[in-house]
């Protein structure tokens, strides 16, 4: 650690720790970042640039870092690419590698791009790869995709946990620099809940690296310690270090990403790696600070060229001298302090090259009396060096150096303010955009709105909090002792940049130079949004934190327009990248979605059932015996229902209780059926349309009393039918006295189907006569089963004699097992959804969403018998009356039977009138359902075919690869067309 100062900084010097970079071992201290530890070892070269593969060094000390992007790995699954080394906290045995280089960082083949750069101008993708056209897909695009992107995403599943939390507060302070801390201190005693977050490991912002000022008579770090202790002791204050406010959403909803374990030597297993905070804040104070602005001159990207403020931070916070011989290039006084401090620490300062004509404030004299050579009106003609700067050529001087520290003033960090949809305004004095009109209950404070002096910053933070919370007392006053500094700014390229052969970089991360921007404007790109997309300036992961304003200024200059007229590009979340894991949080694996199971689920499991997902539900698909195939199982289950008796769990069907004096009127207005003629104790098949006249849902509706209907829906349709009903009830017909209650989960529904169904149930049912005469098809009644309350339906979705037992859900399993036991003598067979589908298809019963696709009317689906002719209105009626909806050539439900009696059609296959057509073929329909294992002795299919009902007996063709399958159009009812069995 040759460049470590003998003392000072906030690192823990007691115990050095080892880490590796590109396979080489180094040492650092707890409290270091990867960047500061590398610099302490004299390592500046850390990466290759994106396009030209130029060697690049550590540039900044924070989130604005464009160059030092590294991959940090703990193991194969825990590997994160593109981390900014300036933000990676050092831990024992940290392993990092550089990116975008091959075979090594020092010797990189991709560097050839730099020599070829005149063939790779801005927009070269669009110019170069347009011809020959066919080469785009086969050659250019794959090659570009290989070259694109930085780093490699891990391919193993992420083994870490990610936590999430919602939080609410009266004041969220983003950024714990002096402004943020002053805001929190001011609000702390008001009773408000305060969250103070900062992206860094320690709270304090600029105070962590600026020992000079004293606040209220204490030096800055003592004041900081006392202030944080005071805030930490307040139970209404939540301090969140390592927490980046990455996104600002409507109504002061702010996303925070807190890193919990990435900084630990070896995180305890099971501990959450990160926590995503979703904060709803009554007020927000943004105290996000400012980023130092780089200067643009030829050869400004050599390793060793970095921001002066970063050098200041490395020296005071980490105890690292960034080099042995420094030249300072500046337009403001802060860099003079850096020069003085570096010199005091033993770094030789070759010169302060001040681009201002006559320097700045009192620090100029201090620098001069310290013997530092000061050059005014400075500009840079070029730099020397290959993988590290060795010298810089100023207008009349040539200086040797190993670091060139630059400061072009500051750019307020307006990212979050801009995300909050606040309006920015241009400040000529600051040469920057600053927050103007807030769109939310939000205030910016301190450097992020262009206030840079510490005393003013503290006062601004205090004021922001006092105003936000409407505190009726004067905010605290902070006494500052600090020398005056002039903080001028410079914008755009230094004179001479872009004229020599060397590149002057504007956007380091995306390798955009002054010449690229000039070329774009010459080629007609005048809007900054177009220039941005053409040159990709500001589009890297750093979002142009250091480059945007310089780029705009250069474009403005080229176009001869003032900057505000060139405009500002949009800031988007995230401020810095956020892991996918953080967004996924707990919604992974078993918790990705709720898994809903029915009361008989555990029983079905013991019977070896295979389940299928139906929405969020698990339903028994079929019940194979050991070694039995699905085909054989389904065939056996179907046979059992036809010949004996089957038992089926229908609990997932949606159920809605419609109750009130106007219940029948409500049902009449919604459903196509006439409910006035339905007597209590009877049920009817109901159809619900949308306003466009197409089938939305169906199900059996029971009238339990004059003012009470029990409506069943499809499994998947339950929530949307209830929502539609509530919508009409509340917004269209609020005068109707009717209410809705979902009872889907109140009832376990056990379907008992087959010729022996009655014989199985009769011994179990009491208080109810279920005989054919007393309880005919489509009846409903209350009674008891096994002594438990029951609502019994005589309904059938199989075509056989059938009942559906409804019992309160907690009794579902008990009743199921009792029925199953009682049915043993009749060979009762549990059947799953697949057999249910076959049995209903044999009867031509549709499934909404399978036969219908959102464009089928009741008549299309063969259900016009259900539509009440007497009614003058129901939802969808007016649409049904349109001529096109009554055309005889609409697709209609038919049966389809392969002529060979063997072939099973494919669901979704098309139907054609003529065989052996060439594309474009004329297709008149499609197959909606198709089953091989039937009880009728041959495969069957249902389909929707244009004018299908007039085609009975016709031969049509189902075109498949290489052949046409001949099919006969039949009635959709393949089994018991007279309905004898159902009425047994």
């Amino acid at each position, binding site marked *: 650690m040759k460049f470590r100062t003998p003392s000072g900084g906030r690192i823990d010097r007691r115990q050095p720790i080892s880490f590796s970079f590109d396979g080489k071992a180094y040492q650092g201290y707890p409290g270091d970042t990867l960047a500061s530890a590398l610099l302490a070892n004299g390592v500046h070269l850390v990466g290759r640039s994106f396009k030209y593969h130029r060697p690049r060094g550590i540039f900044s000390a924070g989130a604005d870092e464009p160059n030092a992007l590294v991959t940090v790995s703990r193991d194969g699954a825990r590997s994160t690419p593109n981390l900014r080394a300036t933000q990676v906290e050092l831990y024992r045995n940290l392993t990092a590698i550089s990116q975008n280089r091959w075979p090594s960082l020092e010797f990189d083949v991709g560097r050839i791009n730099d020599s070829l750069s005149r063939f790779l101008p801005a927009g070269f993708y669009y110019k170069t790869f347009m011809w020959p056209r066919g080469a785009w897909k086969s050659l250019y695009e794959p090659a570009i995709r290989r070259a694109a992107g930085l780093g490699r995403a891990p391919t193993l599943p992420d083994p870490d*946990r990610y936590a999430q*939390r919602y939080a609410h507060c009266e004041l969220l302070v983003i950024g714990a620099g002096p402004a943020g801390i002053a805001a929190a201190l001011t609000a702390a005693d008001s009773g408000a809940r305060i969250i103070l977050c900062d992206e860094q490991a320690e709270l304090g912002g600029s105070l962590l690296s600026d020992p000079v000022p004293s606040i209220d008579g204490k030096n800055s770090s003592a004041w900081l310690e006392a202030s944080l202790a005071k805030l930490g002791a307040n139970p209404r204050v939540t301090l969140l270090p390592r927490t980046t406010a990455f996104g600002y959403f409507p109504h002061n909803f702010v996303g925070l990403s807190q890193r919990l374990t990435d900084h630990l030597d070896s995180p305890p297993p099971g501990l959450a790696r990160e926590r995503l905070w979703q904060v709803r804040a009554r007020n927000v104070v943004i105290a996000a600070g400012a980023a130092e602005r780089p200067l643009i001159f030829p050869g400004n990207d050599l390793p060793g060229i970095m921001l002066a403020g970063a050098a200041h931070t490395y020296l005071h916070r980490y105890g690292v001298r960034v080099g042995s011989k420094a030249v300072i290039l500046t337009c403001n006084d802060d860099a003079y302090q850096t020069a003085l401090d570096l010199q005091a620490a033993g770094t030789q300062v070759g010169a302060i090259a001040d681009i201002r004509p006559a320097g700045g404030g009192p620090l100029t004299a201090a620098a001069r009396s310290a013997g530092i050579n000061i050059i005014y009106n400075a500009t840079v003609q070029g730099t020397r060096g290959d993988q590290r700067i060795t010298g810089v050529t100023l207008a009349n001087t040539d200086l040797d150096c190993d670091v060139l520290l630059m400061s072009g003033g500051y750019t307020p960090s307006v990212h979050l303010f801009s995300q909050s949809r606040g309006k920015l305004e241009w400040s000529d004095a600051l040469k920057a955009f600053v927050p103007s009109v807030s769109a939310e209950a939000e205030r910016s404070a301190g450097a992020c709105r262009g206030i840079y002096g510490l005393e003013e910053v503290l006062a601004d933070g205090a004021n922001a909090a006092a105003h936000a919370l409407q505190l009726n007392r004067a905010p605290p006053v902070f006494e500052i002792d600090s020398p005056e500094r002039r903080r001028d700014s410079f914008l755009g390229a230094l004179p001479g940049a872009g004229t020599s052969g060397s590149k002057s970089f504007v956007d380091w991360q995306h390798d955009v130079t002054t010449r690229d921007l000039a070329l774009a404007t010459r080629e007609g790109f005048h809007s900054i949004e177009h220039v941005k997309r053409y040159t990709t300036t500001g589009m890297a992961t750093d979002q142009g934190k250091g480059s945007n304003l310089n780029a705009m200024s250069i474009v403005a200059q080229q176009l001869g327009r003032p900057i505000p007229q060139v405009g500002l590009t949009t800031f988007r979340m995230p401020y810095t990248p956020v892991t996918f894991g953080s967004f996924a949080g*707990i919604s992974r694996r078993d*918790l990705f979605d709720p898994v*809903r*199971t029915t009361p008989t689920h555990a029983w079905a499991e013991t019977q070896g059932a295979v389940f299928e997902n139906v929405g969020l539900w698990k339903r028994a698909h079929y019940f194979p015996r050991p070694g039995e195939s699905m085909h054989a199982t389904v065939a056996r289950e179907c046979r059992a229902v036809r010949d004996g008796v089957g038992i089926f769990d229908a609990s997932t069907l949606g159920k809605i209780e419609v*109750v009130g004096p106007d219940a029948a009127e409500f049902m009449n207005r919604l459903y196509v059926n006439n409910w006035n003629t339905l007597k209590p104790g009877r049920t009817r098949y109901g159809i619900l349309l949308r306003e466009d006249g197409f089938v939305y849902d169906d199900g059996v509706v029971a009238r339990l009393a004059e003012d009470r209907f029990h409506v069943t829906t499809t499994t998947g349709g339950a929530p949307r039918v209830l929502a539609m009903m509530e919508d009409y009830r509340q917004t269209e017909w609020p005068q109707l006295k009717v*209410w809705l209650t979902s009872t889907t989960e*109140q009832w376990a529904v056990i379907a008992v189907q087959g010729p022996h169904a009655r014989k199985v149930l009769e011994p179990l049912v009491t208080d109810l006569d279920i005989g054919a005469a007393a309880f005919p098809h489509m009846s409903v009644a209350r009674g008891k089963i096994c002594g438990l309350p029951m609502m019994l339906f005589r309904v059938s979705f199989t075509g056989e004699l059938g009942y559906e037992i409804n019992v309160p859900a907690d009794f579902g399993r008990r009743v199921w097992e009792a029925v199953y036991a009682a049915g043993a003598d009749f060979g009762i067979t549990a059947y799953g959804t697949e057999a249910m589908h076959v049995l209903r298809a044999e009867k031509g019963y549709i499934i909404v969403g399978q036969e219908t696709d959102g464009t089928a009317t009741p008549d299309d689906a063969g259900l016009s018998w259900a539509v009440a002719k007497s009614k003058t209105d129901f939802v969808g009626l007016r649409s049904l009356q349109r001529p096109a909806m009554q055309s005889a050539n609409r697709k209609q439900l038919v049966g389809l039977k392969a002529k060979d009696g063997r072939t099973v059609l494919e669901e979704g296959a098309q139907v054609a009138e003529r065989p052996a057509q060439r594309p474009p073929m004329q297709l008149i329909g499609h197959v909606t359902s198709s089953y091989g294992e039937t009880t009728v002795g041959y495969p069957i299919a249902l389909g929707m075919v244009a004018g299908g009902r007039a085609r009975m007996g016709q031969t049509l063709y189902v075109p498949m690869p290489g052949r046409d399958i001949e099919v006969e159009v039949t009635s959709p009812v393949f089994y018991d067309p007279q309905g004898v069995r159902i009425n047994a």
Partner: protein
Amino acid sequence: MPDADWLRVKPPAARLLLQADAHARAAAAAVWGVPFSEESCRARAAAGRATLWLGPDEHLMWQESREAELPIVELAHALAPFAHSLVDVSHRQIALEVSGPEAAVILAGACPLDLSLQAFPVQMCTRTVLAKAEIVLWRTAPENFHIEVWRSFQAYVEALLREIARP
């Protein structure tokens, strides 16, 4: 870490959903023994029974035990003069209790509401979500939350809360 029994499945309860106006509610309250809150999102509780405001004309009537029969007949009689809907939903949902000093923080892992005592005082109740499950949340004591959730979501909600409660 929360206490060992911070998450508890409550014994099977009896429940009725009453949808009706204030006159009908007054008649029902006389039978039920617990008044109905006219203030939004508030529950009233007494002697093993409670009423939870779920909407301007919608209240959940909750009885902690199924041992005692629900007074359906008496309620029907009292409510007969009024337009109303009374539906037994005892088995539709189950109740969980989250308790202890960490209760509100654990719930904040999946519920977007402000659960501070000021914003969500004792006896406040509301429909809300716990991640992807719809629930009714009812604060029965400063460190006690009662959750009503449809029965098929029970496994999800329990697993979710246990995952959130991990450090």
